[in-house]
């Protein structure tokens, strides 16, 4: 019994660490790739670790109230918490965690928990830019959640389960990844992912020159550092979720890295060649093609 708990804890720690390290490297890689696309050398791939250490080593002489202090913690809950309910590998030793205790609808909600907490933290700083950034972010969320949910509903209808592990298993049983079984759902979800990752053209939330980085404009040092790490974990979470839902999961870490990184490249490269949408343009974008694909996906799941 006691051993179980230790094993569980160990699993949690290893998963989190894995997510953190992978996420950080992905972010480093994204900077590197962006630089290469722009014909630059770019920072080393471990640059984000250095940034993180530096940020954690910086003083935080001031805060604007306890909600600001807790804001990044909410973000972490959402990132680490979601990770706990997603099967990282198909049949891993440590990485099942609490997959059986949650399901995908629950995840949808847990994933916005962080944004709301973070928004509260940003709100308390009193910087108008933070609040403006938050409103943009939330508005954009209303946009991309719809195709994303449509894709998920399509999957649920197709596999008659809401449990992610079972969706995975269903894919294995049929031998077809759901991105081929229901391509429309995958397209809708992928287009929604552009908004979810907040690369351009959907990066108006923290537009540096206009909003002074928006919600985080008052947060330096440990706040920014914690947020960065949570972003890293969260990016990994989203990628693993996509891989699980649409690409049949991964049997080992190498496969996982290949699949997630491949997926990660899509919003990244799409963003590199795109300018920035205004918020309402972004929302309209999501209610255009992505939603149409979502509808087709649902109809496809129902009638096919």
């Amino acid at each position, binding site marked *: 019994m006691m051993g179980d708990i230790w094993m569980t804890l160990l699993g949690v720690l290893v998963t989190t660490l894995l997510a953190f390290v992978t996420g950080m490297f992905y972010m480093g890689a994204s900077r590197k790739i962006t630089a290469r696309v722009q014909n630059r050398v770019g920072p080393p791939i471990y640059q984000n670790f250095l940034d993180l250490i530096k940020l954690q080593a910086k003083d935080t002489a001031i805060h604007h*109230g306890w909600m600001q202090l807790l804001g990044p913690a*909410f973000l972490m809950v959402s990132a680490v918490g979601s990770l706990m309910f997603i099967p990282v590998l198909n049949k891993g030793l440590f990485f099942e965690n609490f997959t059986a205790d949650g399901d995908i609808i629950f995840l949808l909600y*847990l994933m916005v928990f962080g944004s709301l907490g973070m928004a509260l933290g940003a709100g308390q700083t009193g910087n108008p830019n933070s609040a403006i950034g938050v409103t943009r972010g939330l508005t954009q969320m209303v946009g991309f959640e719809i195709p994303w*949910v449509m894709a998920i509903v399509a999957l*649920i209808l197709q596999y008659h389960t809401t449990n992610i592990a079972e969706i995975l298993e269903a894919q294995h049983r049929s031998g077809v990844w759901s991105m081929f079984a229901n391509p429309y759902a995958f397209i809708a979800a992928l287009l929604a992912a552009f908004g979810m990752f907040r690369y351009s053209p959907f990066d108006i939330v923290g537009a540096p020159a206009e909003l002074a980085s928006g919600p985080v404009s008052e947060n330096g040092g440990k706040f920014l550092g*914690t947020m960065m790490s949570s972003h890293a974990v969260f990016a990994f979470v989203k990628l693993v979720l996509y891989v699980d839902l649409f690409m049949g999961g991964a049997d080992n870490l190498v496969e996982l890295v290949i699949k997630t990184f491949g997926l990660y490249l899509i919003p990244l490269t799409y963003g590199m060649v795109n300018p920035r949408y205004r918020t309402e343009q972004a929302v309209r974008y999501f209610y255009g093609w992505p939603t149409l694909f979502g509808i087709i996906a649902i109809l496809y799941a129902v009638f096919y």
Partner: protein
Amino acid sequence: MNSLVIMLLIYFAGAILVYAANKFSAVLRDVIVVLAGLLPVALFFSIPAFEAFQFRIAGFDLFWDLGSLAYIFEALVVVVGAASLVYAISYMKGKKNLGYFYMNFFLSLGSMTGILMSQDLISFFIFWEIMTWSSYFIVVFNGYKTNKIGLTYIFFSALGAYAMLTAIVMINTQTGSTMWNDFFIAFAGMSSHYQLLISILFIFGFGVKAAMMPLHIWAADAYSHSPMAYTATFSGVLSKMGVYGLALVMIKLALVSNHFVFSQVIAWLGAVTAALATIYALIQKDIRKLLAYSSVAQLGYIITGIAVGTAMSFMAGIYLAVLHGLFKAALFMVAGAVEKQAGTTDMHKLRALIRKMPLTFITAMVAIIALAGIPPLGGFVGKWMLYESLIGSNHYFLVIVIFFSSTAAFLYAYRFLYGIFLGQEEEEFAHVKEAPLMMLIPMLFFTVLLIVTGTFPGIILGPVANAMNHGMGFRGVQWEMSVLTNVYGDSIHLSVISTIVVVVFIVFALFLILKGRKGTRYVTTKDIANSGEPVRPEDNYHFALDFYKPFERAMAPLYRFKMSEIYGNISDGLVSFFQFTRRLYSGNGQTYVYYVLLFIVILLVFSNQLINR
């Protein structure tokens, strides 16, 4: 004596006593308010089973008994009612006409109890109307500005009530009885015309109180303009009477199973209500109005849940109804506390009260998290069940609409918290103190309740499942204390979820708070990075105006659709028609004589028709 009657009597006697006591002393009045508010709570939860009570008046048999579904709503009535009354003591301090206020408050509580215990249609209708006018009198409590709002409310309520009355007399004619049960049994045997007519009338009647889509127009104004102490009950519980009625009618009459179109139309109306009310909630600048629209939206979910009518969606609907009662009561209490302490509820004026009213903020945050349906609080359970049931019963586009409104609900949820508690501090509100203890107690009570229901929804699901198995005609509805299972057999474990969320949160919160704790200190929110320009004391950079302008722009077509304009045109038309009829009475004696002569001439001309009838 019968315990149901005693509860009823406590409320109605409380109404009279409190009015009388107000003439003598304020302390006595408050004591009576608390006593008459808390006594039914004690009575209700200490009595294991209620006996029925029957008597005869005016040729009608009245039959009172507390059904198992009504039990849930009655629990809500006594708990939220008592909390609102305790809250009201502090909140209403210093206002005039308190005897009048409390009298109507108790009358509405008593009438709600009466509605829930009525097993016959006549007493149901009687209590329904008492509820309507007593709540009306509180809606207009705040003076002449509320005149039009009150009239809108009473107009729609009267329309709804009379629709119900029509249905009741038709039932009486058809079945020769005014008992709910006889009606339920006889309904299947009625002709389809009557089935249709009676169901539509009932749904119309209940839909008004439940603020269903075309009938919701009164709700936002009425909720936001009554005193907040009452709105906690008004929006939290009174609107649930409509839900209760809808639940009875939709499920017991098997409208859902036998009349597919019916359930679809109502479910879609609920969903559209939710969506439209949500997008209107997030452009409000008054927090009371924001909450009022949010209430309408939440009622939309509940209606959808009930109308879809599978076991799980019904459970979700009732669960949400109870939970909405709890968190919306808490939120309206927060609004009341802010109104009382800061003197305004305008989000364009309010600034950063979080450090002034931390406990109020915690209440607001917990209630908002519950409202937004974010785990691990109670609201999530209802949302989860609703989605799972909608997907499970193949309402896949309905679920998208619901999901849209629930996502958009984050927007107003954030705006509520930000608008009151966050942002830049302002001298004007430097004096604001935390709400008085008597207001905090009920608020914190709800906070605890919401946290507990998040992990152990079985507290509510148990009675709901019981009601569904015994009386609502569902079979074998299962429930567990902290496990939810959907139609596919997948389950989520709320205790695990809560543990993880809490543990992770605490770990990182401790990390953030403890790290560099000594070197960190608080600075005012005027001390912000602002391109090097210090914020002067007389300036304030709080962001409140046009908060969701991007959203408004993106959703511009939806905002163009205004129900109130349609109703405005109708009412203008009616008023001019009334003016025309008034003109018929010209005041000229000759005209009147013409009328008389015209009348008799016409009748004589058509007398052949009269013979041959």
